[in-house]
């Protein structure tokens, strides 16, 4: 073998920087990121049958798996910490919109920076917390000290605005 592995290697080469960049930003540890990225590609290899080019791009398929996997790891670690040492997440946290300033510095795509920049600050912060930090809507609500419904609305509105700006077909 052969053609399978060659095709897989090409897919890896075309997508791994994006997948890895996302995962390392979420889990904030190069070692854990390497582990998660390896898991993601192994899953992709085993579940190739489930990929359907008519439904979306290969990159979106991989990023979706990577985000899910990374977020599950983060939440598992949070649960472990909460149990072990009553770790108080909020104490370590930073004021509102700081996730955005941190993300903004590292965005290497001016396009995405402009699109995120075009969102209202509260939508942008919610989107960044969810996508780049892996927060659930409940965590977003706690972090921003707003009701759950408000947090959900900000995430939805922010992502819907991005979707229109990006021209992803309705």
């Amino acid at each position, binding site marked *: *073998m*052969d*053609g*399978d592995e*060659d*095709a*897989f*290697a*090409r897919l*890896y*080469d*075309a*997508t*791994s*920087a*994006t997948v*890895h*960049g*996302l995962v390392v*930003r979420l889990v904030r540890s190069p070692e854990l990121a*390497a582990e998660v990225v*390896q898991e993601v*590609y*192994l899953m*992709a*290899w085993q579940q*190739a*049958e489930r*990929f*359907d*080019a*008519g439904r979306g*791009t*290969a990159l*979106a*398929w991989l*990023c*979706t798996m*990577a*985000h899910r996997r990374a977020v599950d790891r983060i*939440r598992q670690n949070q649960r472990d910490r909460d149990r072990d040492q009553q770790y108080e997440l909020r104490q370590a946290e930073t004021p509102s919109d700081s996730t955005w300033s941190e993300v903004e510095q*590292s*965005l*290497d795509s001016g396009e*995405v920076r402009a*699109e995120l920049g075009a969102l209202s600050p509260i939508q942008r912060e919610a989107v960044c917390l*969810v996508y*780049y930090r892996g927060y*659930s*809507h*409940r965590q977003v609500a706690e972090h921003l000290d707003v009701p759950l419904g408000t947090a*959900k609305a900000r*995430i*939805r509105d922010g992502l819907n605005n*991005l*979707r229109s700006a*990006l*021209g*992803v077909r*309705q």
Partner: protein
Amino acid sequence: MKDIQGDGRTGDVHADAVLYAVDALEPGERAAFELHLRGCAACQEEVAAFGEVGAHLASAVAEPPPAALRENVLAAVRGTRPEQQPEQQSEHRAENPAEHRAGDASGATVVSLADRRRGRRRWLTAAAAAVLLPAAALGGWSVGTQTEQREQQLVAQEQDRQNRLLSAPDVTTRQLEVDGRPATLVVSAQEDAALFVASDLAGPGEGQEYQLWLLQDETPVPDVHFGGGQVQVWLDGDVDRAGAVAMTVEPAGGSETPTLPVLATAEI
């Protein structure tokens, strides 16, 4: 449409699609939404669309992994066979009685050969889709003005055309090497379509262009011509009647008969 969610709160369950797509639901909500998702085509589309938004956000923070990771991943893959969906195995067996007979003699290994062949096609499709991504994505993200809306329509048409090709049951890819640089031909006879893709072709030279030829019964039929750099072109001719594709360098504007040497060929 209002639904009662599994946790007893009233809410629009479809509105959770976007939250689900970016993993913003709590664990219990995620499980409940997945039950709904299985039967809801509208939500499946929503989730897929927000998956593309996510990939766009991810591509903005791209960071190459350490080189060692590539070796680890490929080594891990080498020892693992892709999983197969049972109904497709039997469908495949029915299509290939010869393989099935051979399978009776040597047990499960030959079924796995058929499976592998199928898995390979799937992989080539996924890899081809990844190759196509940059151009498709570049065109996809624009806003606003009428010109841009027209462009968006064109991009959407192009994406539909690519999707039809990539979803064709007989889609295959062929790797070509042009002056040491890789190019890919994505072909489906059933769709009568072929797409030539390269991310970085060398320039063909001053006053010259690359040209593709469809070989029909050994006769080269002139097809598209184009320059170097990032290339993504559809072949014009009768792909379903051609046995091979060849590539030459011709004077700008293309030729009626090929100028030798042939730079690359691929059977289709």
